[in-house]
């Protein structure tokens, strides 16, 4: 059953960097962690960087001239440089630190909505998203459309879990001000054809926002090659700490957009009557930033770059191909999403007969296998496929073929349990 694979990553060595992977649960069951699309684990290198930050350098940034403040500032801004390099940003000022991808997208949605013409949203304007979005790329646009009177439209999904772009020229029109879509779906695993959507958006002069939350951790991300205006992603899914996200934006656009949150750090000059705002990226970073978390994210991208994102992607592609094969051989199992590994990320959703995913997940958990069950913050996808929820297994750089085998064996036990 095992497919011959040229796995270039030394996964056994990598796993040693992740102490939590040695955990046993429910007494004596080794942890099989297949919930990587929800969050990734953190290598020792990241935890050490954070610990070192707090125990040696801790200070508030930017505003101090004492040693600790200078060190903390250098570490924080150094993390920005690392992230800028990781995503091939043209300028470090284009990298804005937020608390998570959700804040990044809300920031984008709100400042676009508030911007002066010709940017800005008004009644008659349209925002285009897709039925495949994470709630974090649906609700922010619903909220700004509600507040501005703009109209929300969306692309549907084909039966095999791809975006239905057949009517792209009728969905994205001269009325479209923004197009926002997910690069890699967290529920279906689909990798979307960004170039095609960007091309059409450019034709009509719409801004393009890309949710790269499931892309940044898994494949080489080149924001210049993508050609979008704004790109959001989140630290905790890419081996970084919780509490940190990124919004990348084209410099000229970020300069034109109004600020989002107001407060310390994001100002140039404050009087009681009015204030002016700092230069990029600080204009969008109000208050004490998540300093230690940025330092951790910097260590995470060092770790990922050290391994090479091409190799990470290759490894995950191989695991995914193997898992798709083996899962589809399970009696009664139906994959929700693309059934082949082409243009596909490492998250696989499925239903098992008429068993509810909650029950599937509960029994798998008892065996030490951690999967996610439910809507995966993408309820419209479940509705589209007529399923109440799905079970999702998702892989990362430390995932092994053996873990796929454990999942498949676990699913057999699930079926026996509820027979």
């Amino acid at each position, binding site marked *: 059953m095992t497919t011959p694979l040229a796995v270039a990553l030394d996964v056994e060595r990598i796993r040693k960097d992740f102490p939590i992977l040695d955990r046993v649960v*429910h007494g004596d069951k080794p942890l099989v962690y297949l919930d990587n699309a929800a969050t990734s684990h953190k290598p020792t290198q990241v935890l050490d960087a954070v610990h070192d930050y707090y125990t040696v350098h801790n200070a508030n940034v930017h505003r101090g001239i004492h040693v600790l403040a200078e060190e903390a500032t250098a570490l924080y801004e150094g993390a920005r440089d690392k992230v800028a390099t990781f995503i091939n940003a043209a300028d470090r000022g284009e990298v804005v630190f937020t608390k998570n991808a959700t804040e990044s997208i809300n920031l984008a949605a709100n400042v676009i909505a508030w911007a002066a013409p010709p940017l800005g949203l008004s009644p008659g304007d349209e925002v285009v998203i897709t039925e495949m979005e994470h709630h974090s790329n649906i609700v922010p646009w619903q909220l700004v459309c509600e507040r501005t009177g703009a109209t929300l439209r969306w692309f549907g999904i084909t039966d095999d879990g791809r975006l239905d772009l057949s009517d792209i020229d009728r969905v994205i029109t001269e009325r479209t001000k923004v197009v926002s879509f997910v690069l890699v779906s967290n529920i279906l695993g689909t990798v979307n054809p960004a170039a095609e959507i960007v091309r059409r958006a450019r034709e009509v002069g719409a801004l393009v926002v890309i949710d790269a939350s499931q892309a940044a951790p898994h494949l080489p991300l080149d924001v210049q090659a993508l050609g979008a205006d704004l790109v959001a992603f989140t630290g905790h899914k890419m081996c970084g700490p919780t509490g940190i996200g990124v919004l990348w934006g084209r410099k000229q656009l970020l300069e034109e957009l109004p600020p989002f949150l107001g407060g310390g750090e994001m100002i140039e000059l404050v009087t009681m009557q009015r204030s002016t705002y700092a230069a990029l990226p600080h204009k969008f970073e109000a208050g004490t930033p998540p300093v230690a978390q940025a330092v951790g994210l910097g260590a995470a991208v060092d770790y990922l770059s050290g391994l090479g994102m091409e190799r990470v992607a290759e490894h995950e592609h191989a695991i995914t191909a193997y898992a798709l094969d083996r899962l589809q051989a399970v009696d009664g199992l139906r994959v929700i999403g693309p059934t082949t590994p082409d243009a596909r990320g490492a998250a696989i959703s499925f239903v098992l007969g008429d068993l*509810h*995913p*909650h*029950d599937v997940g*509960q*029994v798998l*958990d*008892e065996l030490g296998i951690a999967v996610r*069950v*439910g*809507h995966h913050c993408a*309820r419209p996808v*479940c509705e589209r496929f007529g399923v*109440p*929820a799905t079970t999702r297994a998702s892989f990362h750089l430390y995932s092994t073929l053996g873990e796929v085998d454990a999942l498949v064996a676990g699913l057999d036990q699930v079926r026996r*349990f*509820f027979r």
Partner: protein
Amino acid sequence: MNVETMYQEIILDHYRSPHHKGLREPFDAEVHHVNPTCGDEVTLRVRVEDGVVTDVSYDSLGCSISQASTSVMTDLVVGRPVADALRTHDEFLQLMQSRGESEPDEDVLEDAVAFVGVSRYPARIKCALLGWMAWKDATAQAVAAASSSAPTEEMA
């Protein structure tokens, strides 16, 4: 802790053949409840006549725990005075908050005692409570509607 303590045979039986399922007329109140963490949903109708729950009917989507719990609930409340049924609801709620430590009264809870194992699994307690919460909400609405048309009646 072992998953068999959660999935008692009684629970799986109710799951496979739920009681009182389907939406029926007549009814005095209908509610729709969802569990946003997992997506379980239930639409539930209640009929209250002379202070007695005379029918509970429902349509639902969800896991074995939420399905079975709703089924068990209907057995416990249909045909009972509202006040009594509410006491049973409170008893069940207490059981669910007990983290597996309580000794449920089988005379009161009947098949529902099987859910004691579920109370050890924090993420599943909401599943077990979904139908009960919907029933309580619908019954309160039904009683309120009745008392506003016939002001002498009151909810216990």
